[in-house]
């Protein structure tokens, strides 16, 4: 019996004597308390959390040398060796900060992102579809952002005094050739790709990463939806056509196939058109996209492969009046066939390696007939890319990429069997280092080099950017770089040995996002060099040289607010561009026709729950387009009246799976003029007769019904964005 007691007493005594009390305080480097940190002995369950004042205290039965681990969100884990011998330990732990990519500073100079996750986002993927006035066109939505100019007779993206060819477009990192539909001159085009395909975009108006090249002004990188949520069928019935998309999803893969047909003839027969259509635009397209993922990032290895195929055909015939001639004018007939395929992959491997890349091919063929003269144009672009990124530490990562482009272009006058063509192979390498000095200071430096077989030229362009986060939420970034671009196809085919044109960018940006309000201000200076100049005799170019130059400078502002007015989301943009250039057929340094000085837009979206509707309006405005009037001396001496367009839209969701959408552009019916065309010869009185370049119709109205068929009835077409 005594024995029992002895044992019992012995055990309790032992337990009491073996306990070591560990207490102390956790602070950051400045001595501020770090509450909620995890303090424990490595390899055991013994531990606790620091309290509001950073203090902690716990006991352990372990003895001897032990490692005390202290972890807290936003700090580097810290290990301290301690000796547990039954005596109370008093410790002072000072943690040093770690890089937290979620809240750390990001480079916002020149960049505008659309996405769901990041802080530096200005648009949501959904905005591209729901911005009224954009009519579902990606370009249309981006034109409401700062740094862009609406050029109504063109429809493409014009960025900061640059022409449309200065913007390169990428899908999942791979370049897209002929991203816009082929069209006749002064008839606006659209982006060929449906906005529903993309879950995010990165739109840079300058100073962009060494990853992108062959673009003097701007890069637009679109990323496609990863795995769709569910299997569903989407029917669209529109005033201009219809289509069907079927999505099938598995656990690790998905297939989407779609087909659409558009014909503007019925609409244009009902609503008076200012363009003289013989055959209204008609098109079809079909797409297949396959996605497959593997692994789990938590296991160290995971990846994604996407394959996307798009093919389409378009046709139209239009009559365009000749200034000074009373007849119907020139008859322009256009038939277009276009295909794009893109296979891309992403793979994150062990030891902080990350790989991505892919292959893309675009093929565009235009059969153009101007009156009796047929012309066949074929443009092909192949792009192969492989990139390796290594994170050496949370602070430092290095990206290296290799790219190969084949660009082939040909023009054939089929009646006389005369062909001009060229093929160019371009090899590019880029390297870019990112370094976080702290959560508040980041620097990115890169260099991109290239070689063109046709131009027989080697080039190297440095890029640099830095961003500094202030004490409050705001941050400054600065970016600078050199950019090269070979001239447009229609020029290169006439003169094969043309070299790179060049631009240098300097950008200073301030960005603040706080509680659903975003403000962005940016000033820029862009210098153009080696621009191509030529003589233009009614579309026949000759006498090429690369002595052109120019500049663009200005500033722009963006404010978005989703908080101040209940249920309402709006943004306001103002861009000032002072640009002059001597290029193309310009003889002097002048403001180009596509660069209005003052540009602005207001976009408002209001969610009316009682009406189950989203009501939208957008107003886009600029101070007018310069144009040359041959009746006066000099060039670009005149300016059109200001441009203004007020659009409205209404989306009605009677049920979760049905969307009824109605929209109308230019509701005020303003007669916008984008420039003037003049007769080549003066009339009897010695004056050149001019004709305004205007809109295809006063207004464009659009109605559509989107129905989604899925097993749970809550799905609709916007779910995947």
């Amino acid at each position, binding site marked *: 019996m005594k024995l*029992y007691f002895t044992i019992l007493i012995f055990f309790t005594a032992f337990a009491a004597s073996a306990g070591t009390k560990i207490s102390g305080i956790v602070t950051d480097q400045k001595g501020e308390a770090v509450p909620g940190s995890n303090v424990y002995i490595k390899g055991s369950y013994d531990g606790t959390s620091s*309290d509001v004042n950073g203090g902690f205290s716990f006991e352990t039965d372990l003895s001897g040398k032990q490692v005390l681990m202290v*972890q807290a969100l936003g700090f580097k884990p810290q290990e301290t060796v301690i000796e547990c011998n039954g005596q109370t330990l008093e410790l002072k732990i000072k943690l040093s900060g770690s890089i937290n990519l979620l809240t750390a500073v990001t480079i916002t100079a020149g960049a505008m992102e659309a996405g769901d996750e990041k802080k530096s986002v200005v648009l949501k993927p959904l905005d591209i579809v729901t911005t009224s006035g954009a009519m579902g066109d990606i370009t249309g939505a981006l034109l409401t952002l700062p740094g862009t100019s609406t050029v109504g007779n063109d429809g493409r993206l014009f960025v900061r005094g640059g022409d449309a060819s200065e913007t390169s477009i990428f899908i999942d990192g791979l370049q897209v050739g002929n991203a816009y539909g082929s069209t006749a001159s002064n008839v606006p085009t659209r982006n060929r790709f449906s906005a529903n395909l993309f879950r995010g975009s990165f739109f840079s108006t300058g100073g962009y990463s060494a990853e992108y090249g062959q673009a003097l002004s701007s890069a637009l990188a679109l990323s496609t939806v990863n795995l769709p949520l569910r299997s569903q069928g989407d029917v669209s019935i529109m005033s201009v056509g219809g289509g069907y998309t079927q999505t099938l999803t598995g656990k690790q893969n998905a297939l989407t196939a779609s087909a659409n047909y558009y014909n503007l003839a019925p609409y244009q027969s009902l609503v008076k058109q200012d363009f003289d259509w013989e055959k209204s635009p008609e098109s079809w397209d079909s797409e297949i996209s396959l996605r497959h993922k593997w692994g789990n990032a938590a296991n160290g290895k995971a990846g994604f492969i996407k394959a996307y195929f798009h093919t389409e055909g378009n046709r139209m015939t239009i009559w365009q009046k000749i200034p000074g001639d009373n007849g119907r004018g020139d008859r322009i007939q256009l038939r277009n066939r276009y295909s794009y395929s893109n296979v891309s992959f992403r793979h994150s491997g062990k030891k902080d390696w990350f790989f991505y890349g892919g292959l893309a091919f675009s093929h565009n063929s235009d059969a153009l007939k101007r009156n009796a003269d047929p012309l066949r144009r074929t443009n092909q672009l192949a792009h192969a890319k492989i990139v390796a990124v290594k994170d050496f530490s949370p602070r430092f990562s290095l990206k290296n990429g290799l790219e190969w482009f084949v660009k082939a272009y040909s023009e054939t006058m089929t009646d006389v069997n005369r062909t001009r063509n060229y093929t160019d192979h371009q090899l590019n390498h880029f390297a870019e280092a990112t370094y976080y000095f702290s959560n508040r200071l980041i620097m990115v430096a890169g260099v991109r080099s290239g070689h063109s077989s046709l131009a027989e030229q080697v080039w190297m362009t440095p890029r640099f950017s830095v961003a500094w986060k202030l004490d409050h939420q705001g941050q400054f970034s600065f970016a600078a770089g050199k950019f090269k671009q070979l001239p447009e196809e229609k020029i290169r085919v006439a003169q094969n040995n043309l070299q790179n044109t060049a631009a240098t960018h300097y950008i200073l940006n301030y960005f603040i996002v706080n509680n659903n309000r975003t403000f962005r201000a940016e000033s820029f200076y862009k210098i153009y060099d080696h621009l191509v100049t030529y003589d233009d005799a009614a579309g026949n170019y000759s006498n090429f040289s690369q002595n052109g130059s120019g500049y663009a400078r200005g500033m722009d502002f963006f404010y978005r607010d989703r908080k101040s007015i209940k249920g309402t989301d709006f943004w306001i943009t103002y861009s000032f561009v002072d640009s002059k250039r001597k290029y193309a057929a310009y003889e002097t340094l002048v403001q180009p026709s596509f660069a209005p000085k003052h540009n602005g837009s207001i976009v408002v979206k209001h969610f009316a729950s009682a009406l189950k509707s989203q009501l939208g309006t957008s107003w886009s405005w600029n101070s007018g387009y310069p144009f040359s009037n041959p009746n006066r001396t000099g060039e670009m001496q005149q300016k059109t009246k200001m441009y203004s367009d007020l659009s409205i839209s209404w989306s009605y969701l009677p049920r979760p799976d049905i969307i009824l959408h109605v929209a109308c552009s230019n509701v005020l019916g303003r007669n916008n003029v984008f420039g003037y065309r003049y007769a080549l010869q003066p009339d009897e009185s010695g004056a050149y007769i001019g004709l305004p370049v205007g809109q295809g119709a006063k207004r464009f109205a659009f109605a559509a019904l989107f129905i989604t068929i899925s097993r749970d009835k809550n799905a609709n077409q916007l779910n995947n964005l």
Partner: protein
Amino acid sequence: MNKLTFIIAVLLLAVLSVKAQDSPFQKIMKKEIGKINKADSLSQFQQSANAFSRIAELNPTEWQPLYYQALACTFQGMNHKLTPDKKDEALAKAEELVKKAEAISADNSEIIALKGFITMAKVSADPAGRGQSLSGQALAEFGRSLAIDSKNPRALALMAQMEAGIARFFGSGTEKACSLAKQSMAIFAAQDEEALTAAMKPTWGKRIAESMSKSCE
């Protein structure tokens, strides 16, 4: 006297040996699960998260500690005292943990339901900005969870909440939401909480189901 002491000693030993059947892992898990089920403040959830993080480190092949750590982070991310940035930070941590848990236990109805819960928390951190894009994702996640285990009361209750939101928006009937809430309540009522906790199985969510069924009455 002697006999009595003997009996007491034997009883004590018996109790001790029953307790000893639980591994240290199970023991500490039970203790911490008990704590998180009672936690209702930011610091208590942080303490739970830290405790489960310590357990996860020692038991890298078990999904439960990661699951509960993620759950603690999710509750933090839903606390209205936090700024939107801090909420996102906590929810990003929760997402990271739940991915790790999924890597250990794939096709786990509970883990997938938690994923949906995190997505819901992300929506509630910024309803205007994320509602349209993420509520579909949350619905799909609850759907996947229920496809694996149609009797998961948490997935049912959360799905009921989502359905109620949709019904409110479209002014349609709440029958679907209420029937889900009812199913969830029935399962919660029938569950043996102690047995589930002993098996380290999740038991939380009853309050969500209760408030849902109350709004149905």
